[in-house]
């Protein structure tokens, strides 16, 4: 009918030859490959590294660790560093400074008052000195009157 059941061309089951393929190494050749690696062996490097500046400085610092100039230099560098205060402590310091300023103003007023008292005291002493001199003169006058016996009897 439609040729469905016609005999088809025969297909060979055996594949075609693949040509020249490399052969597997023999077990002896495999052992030889394992024992002799073909990786290149690095040669030992004899390079001279450049000196590290920090290491040199640290070594110098360690050698002169107990030296006094180094300590002074360290203190100087500590002083040159920026200094920070906690904000609340800074506010407290400002408050104390204001208090001290008030006490200084009060002290100035007290000193001015003491100077006034001292000046007043000086004036009073001057008055007293003149009064005392006047009394002394009057006493001399009375003494002259009382003890001039000749005048009294005459």
């Amino acid at each position: 009918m439609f040729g469905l059941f016609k005999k088809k061309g025969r297909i060979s089951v055996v594949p075609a030859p693949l040509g020249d393929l490399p052969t597997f190494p023999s077990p002896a050749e495999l052992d030889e490959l394992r024992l002799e690696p073909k990786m290149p062996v690095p040669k030992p490097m004899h390079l001279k590294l450049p000196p590290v500046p920090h290491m040199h400085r640290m070594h110098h610092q360690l050698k002169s660790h107990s030296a006094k100039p180094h300590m002074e230099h360290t203190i100087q560098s500590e002083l040159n560093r920026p200094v920070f205060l906690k904000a609340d402590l800074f506010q407290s310091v400002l408050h104390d400074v204001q208090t001290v300023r008030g006490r200084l103003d009060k002290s100035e007023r007290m000193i001015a008052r003491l100077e006034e008292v001292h000046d007043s005291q000086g004036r009073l002493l001057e008055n007293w000195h003149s009064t005392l001199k006047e009394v002394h003169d009057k006493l001399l006058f009375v003494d002259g009157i009382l003890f001039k016996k000749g005048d009294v009897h005459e």
Partner: protein
Amino acid sequence: MSDMPVFVRVEDYKDALDVMNMIRMKIEDAKRTLEKVRELKSEEDTELELWHTTIDEVERKVDFIDKTLSEPGAM
């Protein structure tokens, strides 16, 4: 974040330390001056007390003289 401490940078820290040392020296000077004033005041009080005693004595003598002069017959 609100609990983090806040810091204030202090400029011229060394000057502040010098000023604090100067203030401390001034306070020591003020203490010495106050002590000297106290000593002078003590001497002044002593002199005033002596003056008061002297005036009392002079007053007694003047009273005696006045009494003597007022009452000649009592001599």
